[in-house]
C-alpha cells in the first residue's frame, strides 16, 4: 500500500474517495494494464464531471488530447461532457528534453474557427512541454473564452511555468483542473505521479492509432475541413 501522504502529494478539493482510489491504482506498479486503463477512464469521467459544471450546456468545446491518452482518459472525459458540442483534436509530438514539436495532427473537420472552450487533456503535467506545444498549436489560431487544462496529476509549479510561457492576455484565461499535486521527482519522473511512463503502463504498442480518433473520423466522414493546423512552407 502506498501511503500517498508521505510522498509529497496534495489532493485538490475535486478529489473524491473514488478518485483517490483510482490515483492510488495508477501509482501501484503491480496493477495490470487493463486495470490501469480502466482507472484512467474513470478519472477522465471524473475530470469531465468537474469540467461539465464549468462549461455551459450547448457550448462548443474543443477537446485536445495526445494519442496515448485518447482512448482512456479523454474518452471518459468526452463522455462526461454530453450536452456540449464536442470537437476533437489529437496531436502527435516529438519530445526532445523539455520541448515538444508536433508532427501529426487530427483536427475535427467540422470544428468551427472559434469555439467557446478548449479542454486540454493530459495524463500528467510535469515539465508541461507537451501541453505548451498543444496550446501553441491550438490557441494561437483561435480565441476561446475558456481554456481548461486538465490532468489527474500535476507537478507542483507546472501551472505557473505554463502561464509564464504565454502572454498574460492569454494565460489569464487558463484554468487548471486536477485531482492531485505532487512535489517529488526521481529521474525526471513524478513520484508517485501516474506510476511511470503512461504508454508503457497502458500497454500501448509503437505506432498505435487511437480508436477514439478512428471512430471520430468515421463519424465525420464526408465533411470538408474548416480548421487548419500549422501551415508549411509553400
Amino acid at each position, binding site marked *: 500500500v502506498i501511503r500517498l501522504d508521505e510522498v509529497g502529494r496534495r489532493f485538490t478539493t475535486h478529489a473524491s474517495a473514488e478518485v483517490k482510489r483510482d490515483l492510488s491504482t495508477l501509482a501501484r506498479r503491480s496493477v495490470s494494464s487493463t486495470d490501469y486503463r480502466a482507472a484512467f477512464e474513470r478519472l477522465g469521467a471524473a475530470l469531465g464531471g468537474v469540467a461539465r459544471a464549468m462549461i455551459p450546456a450547448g457550448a462548443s468545446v474543443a477537446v485536445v488530447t495526445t494519442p496515448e491518452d485518447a482512448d482512456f482518459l479523454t474518452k471518459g472525459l468526452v463522455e462526461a461532457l454530453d450536452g456540449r458540442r464536442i470537437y476533437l483534436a489529437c496531436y502527435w509530438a*516529438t519530445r526532445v528534453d*523539455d520541448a*515538444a514539436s508536433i508532427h501529426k495532427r487530427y483536427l475535427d473537420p467540422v470544428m468551427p474557427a472559434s469555439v467557446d472552450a478548449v479542454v486540454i487533456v493530459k495524463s500528467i503535467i510535469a515539465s508541461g*512541454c507537451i501541453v505548451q*506545444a498543444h496550446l501553441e498549436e491550438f490557441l494561437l489560431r483561435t480565441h476561446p473564452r475558456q481554456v481548461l487544462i486538465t490532468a489527474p496529476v500535476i507537478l507542483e509549479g507546472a501551472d505557473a511555468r505554463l502561464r509564464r510561457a504565454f502572454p498574460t492576455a492569454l494565460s489569464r484565461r487558463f484554468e487548471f483542473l486536477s485531482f492531485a499535486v505532487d512535489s517529488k521527482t526521481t529521474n525526471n519522473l513524478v513520484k508517485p505521479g501516474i506510476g511511470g511512463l503512461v504508454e508503457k503502463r497502458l500497454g500501448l504498442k509503437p505506432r498505435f492509432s487511437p480508436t477514439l480518433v478512428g471512430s471520430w473520423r468515421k463519424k*465525420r466522414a464526408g465533411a470538408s475541413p474548416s480548421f487548419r493546423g500549422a501551415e508549411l512552407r509553400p
Partner: protein
Amino acid sequence: MNRGGLANSRGALYEEFFAVFRVIDALFALKHGQGRQLAQQCEGTRVDDFVEKYGGHRHHFQLKRKLRVRWSEVHDDFVTELGHGSRVTLVVPSRDQRRALLAAKRRVQGAEVLVFPAASTPNEACAASEVRTALDAVSVKTTPHHADRLALWNAIRLAWENSRKPGQFVSCRLVLSRFVDQEDILGPLPLRMPWTPSKRWHRARRLLQQIPSFSFRIEDGQFVYDDRAGTSGTLSCRTRAFRAFVDRVVKSRPTTPQALVDLL
C-alpha cells in the same frame, strides 16, 4: 573563487550556446550546398573559441561574455589570424557593446563584431531574435512556435554534443547524421534538408497518387500529407520511420485515405 566558478560556468554556457547557434547556421548552409567543418576550442590557432572551414576559407570566432571588452584583449591574436587570411569575428552579448567596439579608435581593422545574446537556459536562447531567425530559416514550418524552436534547438544541441571532438574539426554532415539518428529514436523533427528520392519511393509515390482525397508533397526532405478528413502531418524523409512507411505502402498498396493513415 565562487565568483570565478560562476563566471567560468557562464562563459562555458555562452560558448556552448554559441556553438549550437553556429551549427544551425552551418545546417542552413548545408541545405544550400555548402558543407562546413566546425571546431570548438580549436587546436593550433590563436582565435580558437569556434572555427569554421569551408571552401578554403577559415572563420574564427572569439567570445567575450563580459560587460567591458577592449580590442587590446584580442589585438595580437586577431592580427595574427587576419595575417593568415582568415576571417575573424569578436562575439559580444549586447548591441551597445558592438556599437562601442566598432566606433573604438584602436579597433582591429578587418575584424568583425557579432552580437550573440547571453542566455542561461535553452528557453531564453530560443527567445532571442538572432537564434529565432536562425532556427526559422532551417525549420519546415513557416510560423514555428516557440515549442518547435526549442525542440529543434535541443535536438541540434544533442547532435552537436554527440559528434564534436575536442579541439578537432568535424563535418557538418556528421552532425546532420547524428541528428537523423536521434529522429529515429525520438520521432520526426521539422528540419529542412535536401533529400535524394529512392527508387522505392517512386513506386510508393505512384500508389499514393491514386488514393482519392489524399494530397502529399515532398518539401525540403519532409513528406507533407493531408487526407482532407482532418489528418495531416509531416514525416522526415531521412528517417527509418519514413523508409518503413514507404515499404508498408509498397507492400499493402492502400487504396483509401483511412487505410493509408493507418500506415503512417
